[in-house]
């Protein structure tokens, strides 16, 4: 055991013998692993917020089918669905894309019956509504920053309506700890959203709440018995119903499936890193050959030389992986995912104005360590084995 520890200690010394090579190897590992771990952490954070979106959303979402695609449906369907057994509530919702400001800032307008909620909500700084004649808007943090808006700001008409346009007023801002999807959101009353889009009597979807155990029956009843006609038309629209279980089924089940193409991109990055680390950790290093030649000449066995290299590789990869984990955590927690947030979250700024969700879990970190160990070991061990299996004189030459 003592011999084993002594040989292991020489592995530590080997790291110090070539400090530049050791630093380059660790840096290469950190550069590849830190963004990978940060991406995985973000992925898990988004997943948890998506779970909330399902849990606190409606039981069923009803949309119409237009020419094979989802489309709006008449608000008149609300009353028809409300009559079905097991339905406790039906709420129409408008969700649509708008652009605001001279720089055409992308935004999502959401129209919901805000009157159903108290004027003050935990997620809003300011208020929701006050029955004013102006269009009252609650806006997201990224939008507020880009358009330099605050509570009380007035917006000139940014839409066209045949019945006339109104000024809009920002009455609330979403707080930065609210889920990420608030970033470019504009929430207003259902009537205001209908006026902004100039499409009265239509809703993007209907949110249906059911009594426990009635979801499937209500879903079937909506598809089979509810007949909805488009405004000014006689054809019956077919309806699509999305249940909470449908959405839950989308949540990725495993680590490998979760990130899909993201994993593929990082596989390519790892492949490049292998080349870099192979070069920095052993190949072509004549000093290593001479060093091993001297060790062999002084009586070291091949297995002892390999053990020394193994310890060296293990410690290098341990240092690289651990540093990557600490850096990824600091990047997401204290720097709020600055830069990397905008890479992985489409529509976010370089420095996000909202709290970036993340959760670093042990399994991806362990996987990162194993991959880095294999990569570093293959570089160090191969060159050591090549040098250790020739005669000392040949190795030292």
């Amino acid at each position: 055991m003592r011999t084993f520890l002594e040989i292991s200690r020489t592995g530590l010394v080997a790291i110090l013998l070539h400090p530049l090579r050791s630093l380059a190897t660790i840096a290469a590992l950190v550069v590849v692993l830190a963004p990978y771990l940060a991406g995985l952490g973000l992925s898990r954070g988004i997943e948890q917020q998506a779970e909330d979106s399902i849990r606190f959303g409606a039981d069923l979402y009803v949309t119409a089918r237009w020419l094979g695609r989802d489309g709006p449906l008449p608000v008149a369907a609300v009353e028809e669905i409300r009559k079905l057994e097991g339905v406790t509530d039906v709420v129409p919702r408008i969700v649509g894309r708008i652009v605001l400001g001279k720089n055409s800032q992308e935004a999502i307008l959401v129209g919901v019956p805000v009157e159903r909620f108290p004027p003050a909500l935990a997620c809003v700084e300011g208020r929701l509504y006050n029955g004013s004649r102006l269009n009252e808007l609650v806006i997201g943090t990224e939008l507020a920053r880009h358009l330099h808006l605050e509570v009380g700001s007035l917006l000139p008409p940014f839409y066209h309506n045949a019945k006339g346009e109104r000024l809009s007023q920002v009455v609330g801002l979403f707080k930065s700890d609210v889920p990420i999807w608030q970033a470019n959101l504009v929430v207003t009353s259902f009537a205001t959203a209908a006026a902004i889009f100039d499409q009265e009597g239509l809703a993007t979807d209907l949110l249906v709440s059911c009594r426990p155990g009635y979801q499937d029956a209500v879903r079937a009843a909506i598809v089979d018995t509810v007949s909805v006609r488009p405004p000014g038309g006689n054809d019956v629209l077919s309806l699509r119903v999305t249940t909470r279980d449908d959405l839950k089924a989308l949540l990725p089940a495993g680590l490998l499936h979760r990130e899909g193409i993201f994993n593929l991109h990082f596989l390519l990055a790892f492949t490049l890193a292998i080349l870099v680390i192979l070069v920095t950790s052993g190949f072509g290093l004549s000093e290593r050959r001479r060093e091993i030649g001297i060790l062999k000449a002084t009586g070291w066995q091949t297995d002892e030389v390999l053990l020394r290299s193994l310890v060296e590789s293990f410690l290098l990869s341990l240092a690289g992986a651990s540093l990557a984990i600490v850096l990824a955590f600091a990047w997401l927690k204290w720097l709020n995912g600055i830069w990397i947030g905008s890479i992985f979250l489409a529509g976010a700024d370089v420095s996000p104005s909202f709290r970036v969700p993340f959760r670093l879990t042990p399994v991806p970190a362990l996987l990162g360590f194993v991959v880095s160990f294999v990569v570093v070991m293959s570089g160090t061990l191969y060159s050591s084995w090549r040098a250790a299996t020739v005669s000392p004189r040949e190795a030292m030459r």
Partner: protein
Amino acid sequence: MRSTAPTILLAAILTVTATAAVQLLIEARSEYPQEESAVSFQRLVGGLGFGPALDLSQCPCTFDPRLEAACGLDLEPVPAGGCFCPQHGTSIFYYPPLHGGPGAHGEARHAHLP
């Protein structure tokens, strides 16, 4: 006399490793905080948001599959056609199309060559 440099190096590596391990353990054991603001937001908008996109400019499906069940830029069955969407192409949070995508539930499917 032995040099202390290897011992210092080992201590440094072990400190970084212990920091990383403790951090991962704390993260693994901690419960996801159920914040009131997140709950009230989702109740207000009726459940909105699912993927890593924050607007509807390119792929509404990546923002929320409830708004558009499948990605309109998905060019499959062209090989790797699913990667043509700029938001899916670098997605850190992949999920399949809702309802199995276009053509599910008995709707007219795309024509296939014999």
